[in-house]
């Protein structure tokens, strides 16, 4: 079973993140960049499928040169090879544009299943799997907390409020995962060493048959007009409990007309 897993490099959600005032895009140059956390679960699920069914795991990413680090991480976890779409014209691309690039790259690959995280921690749009399903006319089983593949069918438990929906669709299909689906492995020393020798194919927009003039900030389907830091909250009241903490808390709530 051949699997493509989509990976995005994002600014670490645990550190300071910002937009670049020059063009209102995500500031990636100054950020501490990591693999989007939920993507690690998709990578793990791809490796589990390979271990159960055989085949190859290909990592696909669209991003600047620095995204090579994210590819390296996925390869060191155990993926076999990678495709890195990198082109200066992509800078500032909106989600629909990025989905067109990913779709074009996927059409050059052979796969039974495409795995990806349900959302990224930077944009938090949670739309890419749906955009790709629409562009490639493939079934999407989204928001998986459990995936099984057998007899040419993918079956997923789609996580919902207070339960799940059981979904099924024939392969080839796209599956997006949440962080409830597994526990990602850490790269082993052997894995890290092996990753250095694994093939990474770099593709430009021209390689994908996409006109660079149709992509990027100037052609984006939506535009950030302006941004600002959220106004800081005024200093709150902090009391130390000396037997009266709870009653002070309730007085505060009463003052807010909550109780």
């Amino acid at each position, binding site marked *: 079973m051949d699997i493509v897993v989509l990976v995005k490099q994002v600014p670490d959600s645990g550190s300071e993140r910002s937009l670049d005032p020059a063009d209102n895009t995500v500031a990636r140059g100054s950020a501490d960049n990591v693999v989007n956390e939920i993507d690690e679960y998709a990578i793990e699920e791809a490796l589990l499928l390979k271990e159960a069914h055989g085949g190859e795991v290909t990592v696909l990413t669209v991003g600047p040169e620095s995204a090579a680090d994210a590819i390296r991480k996925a390869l060191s976890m155990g993926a076999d090879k990678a495709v890195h779409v990198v082109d200066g014209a992509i800078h500032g691309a909106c989600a629909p544009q990025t989905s067109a690039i990913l779709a074009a790259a996927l059409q050059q690959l052979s796969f039974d299943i495409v795995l990806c995280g349900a959302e990224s921690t930077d944009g938090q749009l*949670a739309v890419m799997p749906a955009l790709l399903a629409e562009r490639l006319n493939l079934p999407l089983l989204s928001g998986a907390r459990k995936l099984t593949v057998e007899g040419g069918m993918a079956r997923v438990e789609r996580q919902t409020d207070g339960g799940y929906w059981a979904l099924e669709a024939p392969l080839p299909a796209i599956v997006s995962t949440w962080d409830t689906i597994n526990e990602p492995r850490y790269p082993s020393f052997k894995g890290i060493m092996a990753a250095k020798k694994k093939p990474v194919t770099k593709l430009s927009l021209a390689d994908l048959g996409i006109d660079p003039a149709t992509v990027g900030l100037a052609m984006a389907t939506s*535009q950030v*007009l302006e*941004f600002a830091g959220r106004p800081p909250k005024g200093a709150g009241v902090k009391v130390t409990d000396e037997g009266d903490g709870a009653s002070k*808390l309730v007085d505060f709530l009463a003052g807010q007309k909550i109780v």
Partner: protein
Amino acid sequence: MAEVLVLVELNPTGEGVRKTTLEALTAARALGEPAAVVVGGPGSAAAATAQLAEYGAAKVYVAESEEVEQFLVAPKAEVLAQLVSDKQPAAVVIPSSPEGKEIAGRLAIKTGSGFLTDVTEIAGDGTATQVAFAGATIVHSKVTVGTPIYTVRGNSVTPEPAPGAAEEEQVAVQLSDAARATRVVDRVVEQKSSRPELTEASIVVSGGRGVASAENFSLIEGLADSLGAAVGASRAAVDSGYYPHTFQVGQTGKTVSPQLYIAVGISGAIQHRAGMQTSKTIVAVNKDPEAPIFELADFGVVGDLNTVVPQATEAITARRG
């Protein structure tokens, strides 16, 4: 006046629509006259129409079919795309649930339009407000291509009634094979709760690592019930097995924006703040006076949650008598 399509989220209990729909109808009025779109099984619009009229729907497009419920998401996007083509609306407004975002994305590709997700406000000129990076940055954006599509973040718009004619128009549902790709075989409810839905609740009480055990989460539930609140949990609490993942608030869980958020035994790591930072009023109880959660809190109690929480629950219950 220009028509704005508003996708209705029906209440899963079968009683009317979800609050998110009323929020979307209210937000849509800035752009034109709301026309509600009900896509569901046969008879599903009947329970919704009165409420849609009360919140300003001039029209109700009714697209009912057994098949709509049998397949995931795609049928709803297909019905909306057909309506966008037939009615040429000024915009489409959709509640910002996981399903709503998927519908928005599919609709954007089908109609060649741009979209903005998780907007907290829409202005008359189409500019939308979004909150980025765990609530730290406020962004104003605009769709520049096609029929603008917005998903409205829950609890960010206050639903305001406005009279609407809610004139019904039936829409024929003709699904393509592509919309029949992913079948919904079963819908399973594992946790039945009498508490409000996390993302809709006006008060949320959340527990963290400091709660220290699954059993001790009964303290959090007790305080929540005294306030009629939803219960949430930090990732640390969920990872420790104290509370189910479905209640996780944070970067990799739910994003909530209630009137009141009470964080109990939660240190306030960025992971958690990402999910609750935009709450109107924040209260924290933590034994560590240096916990970062206090930087966000309007009111903080430095103390042992095992004594403070039961006392507060008792006092609130007494007041509410």
